[in-house]
Structure formats: C-alpha cells, structure tokens
C-alpha cells in the first residue's frame, strides 16, 4: 500500500464489464490505476482486481506471451494483455474489451468452446505415413523439412487472429486462421500422412472458402505464425483436391 502511495501518476482504464447474473448487456466502467513504466495492461488489471474491484474477471497464466490466455481488445486492437505495455500506448484512457467476435462469458472472459472443437476437428496430431516400431528407430527430418512447418508450430491458441477476422465475425462457423495454422503445422510435416483426412475437414464454405484474404490475422499474431498463409495455401490444396477426388480410387464413398 505504501508503495502505491508514492506513485503519483495514474492511468485510466475503461473496461467493458458484463456480469451475467446482474447485467442485461455489457457497459464500460472506468478505473484509475497507479502507473509505472514497466507496467503491462495485465498488471494494471491485476492491480484493479487486488485493490479496487475483486469481481473483475479476466484470464491469464504465464505473463510472458506463451500460454495465449490473456487475449483482449486493447484500444480496439486484439492484443495479449501481458505483452502490451502502458508506456507504449498513446496517452489518455486505455480501452479494454473482451476479444471481438466471441460471446462474452463475463467481463473480459470469452467462450472458447467452439474454437477448441475446431482444433479437434482437424486431427491435431501426427498421423504417421509409415508407422514404425521403437526398434526401427526415430523419424528423421532435414532442416528444410522442419522449416516447411516450423513457424506454424509456434501458435499459442490465443485467438487474436479470430478477433481480427471480419469473415469469422460474420460466420462463426468458419474454421478460421488459428485452426488452419495448426492444420498446416501437421500437413506440412514430412512425417505426416494425414493430409487427406484434414483436407476433407476443411472443404466448403465453413472451411478455407470463407477466407477472402483480408490478411489482418497475420498482422495481429503475436507469434508471427502467419495464419493467412496457412489458409491461402490450403485454398489451392482444397481446389486441387476437388478436381482430383474424381480420379482417386477411394472416391466412391
């Protein structure tokens, strides 16, 4: 407490609040927080929860841009709260809202169930081309084969790309950038043989074809995963697959 008293500068946070038990709809509330140079938006929220209003809800865990749980709209842009520092924001009140394009559960907490289902739907694991026993040894990979999918494996499932995607906003069933990045992480892996299964999962309007190459998903991604690239190269794959499936032997089903 005494430490807080010595800090004179404060910053105003305008937070979109929603308590399902009592609020009909979300509305903004302002809080004044003691400001320090090294303070992230997440720390400011924690200060509010600790000292001003214990009912404020938000998700966080790692505080170092690794777990992907603290995504929210900060001054209208999707960002990680732990990775966004007050000193880098323009002076004046900081607006904080729940991640766009997702239903709000409470305050800054959004529903993630649909996103998790999408991830599950694309077989997010390696389906070996040729299964090996332990005795047969490991699967080897060249640096070039690793580079082909490596950036896609950096995704932290923060869903910032979904908040940036207007097509997901209009069609919540669109599989979306993050899940497509994960799909490409496996489809692009030289050890994997599950490409066909995954392509079948993403054909159609709710698959890759909702994307119109807006591209902002890649710009807001805190891990430089480039999900727009994952989606767009799979449009080509999906189009090829559409024509080739007439020729495949297993096309009968």
């Amino acid at each position, binding site marked *: 407490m005494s430490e807080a008293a010595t800090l004179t500068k404060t910053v105003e946070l305008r937070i979109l609040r929603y308590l399902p038990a009592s609020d009909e709809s979300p509305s903004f509330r302002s809080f004044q927080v003691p400001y320090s140079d090294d303070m992230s938006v997440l720390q400011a929220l924690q200060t509010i929860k600790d000292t001003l209003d214990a009912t404020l809800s938000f998700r966080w865990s790692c505080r170092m841009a690794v777990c992907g749980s603290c995504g929210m709209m900060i001054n209208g842009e999707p960002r990680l709260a732990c990775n966004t520092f007050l000193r880098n924001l323009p002076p004046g009140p900081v607006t904080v809202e729940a991640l766009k394009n997702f239903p709000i559960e409470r305050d800054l907490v959004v529903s993630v169930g649909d996103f998790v289902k999408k991830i599950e739907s694309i077989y997010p694991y390696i389906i070996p081309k040729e299964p090996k026993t332990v005795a047969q040894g490991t699967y080897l990979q060249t640096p070039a084969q690793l580079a082909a999918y490596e950036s896609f494996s950096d995704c932290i499932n923060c869903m910032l790309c979904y908040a940036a995607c207007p097509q997901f906003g209009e069609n919540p069933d669109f599989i979306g950038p993050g899940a497509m990045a994960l799909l490409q992480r496996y489809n692009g892996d030289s050890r994997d043989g599950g490409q066909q299964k995954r392509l079948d999962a993403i054909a159609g309007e709710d698959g890759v074809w909702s994307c119109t190459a807006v591209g902002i998903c890649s710009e807001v991604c805190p891990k430089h995963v480039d999900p727009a*690239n994952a989606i*767009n190269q799979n*449009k080509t794959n999906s189009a090829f697959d559409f024509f080739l499936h007439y020729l495949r032997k297993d096309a009968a089903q």
Partner: protein
Amino acid sequence: MSERRPYTRPIDEDWWKKPPYLSYTARELSGIAVTIYGGVLFTGLFSLWRGPESYNAFLRFLQSPLSLLLNLLLLAVVVYHVVTWFQTLPKTMPKMIVDGKQVPAAKITQIATLAAGGSSLLLILLTMWVAR
C-alpha cells in the same frame, strides 16, 4: 446453479470502411479497374471484327482527351492493384525453402514486383518495335 448467459455482441457491418481493413477494401475495389481495362481491350477486338470503320471509330475514341484521362486514371489504379497484390502474394503461396531456410516475404514481393515491372516494360518495347 449456473449463471451462464453468454452475451453476443452485434456484428460491425461497417468493418470494411475502417482501418486496418480499409487497405484490403481498396485493394479489392481496385480490381474493378483491371476488369474495365479488359473491357476496353474486348471492345477493341469486337470493333476489329466488325470492320475497318468500327475499328477506326474505336481508335478515335482512344485518342480523345476523355479516354486519355480515363486511361491515366485506370493506369494509376491498376498499378496500385499490382503493388498491393504482390504484397499479399507471400501469404497466398506455399513457403519457399532455399538452403533449409524460409525465403522472407519481403523478398518474394520484391522479386514478383520486379518481374511484373520488367515484363510490362518488355511488352511496351516489343509493341513499339513491331509498330515502328
């Protein structure tokens, strides 16, 4: 008892008018200029098929100040389309791996833009040589 009552915010219908989406909107709209260019070309072909009189009328229209102004405008918009499209190009193609490393997006954009500029120049020179 669960108090869950997820709140769905209304969709922002005007997203395409606002930054950062405005640049996407401009890129897509500038595609219309490419269509108009194609239209001009087809009109020329059509009048060629109809005979010398029609074709001369088409040429006269091309030389009119109105058409020159229109073409200048179209050219500017098409150049904008080409430049912004090649900025998007790296996002639409498979990763290029050279020597085990990924080729940076900026490099791909640069090469593609140079190739487009170079082939346009070549076409102009060729046309001038044929028409000499």
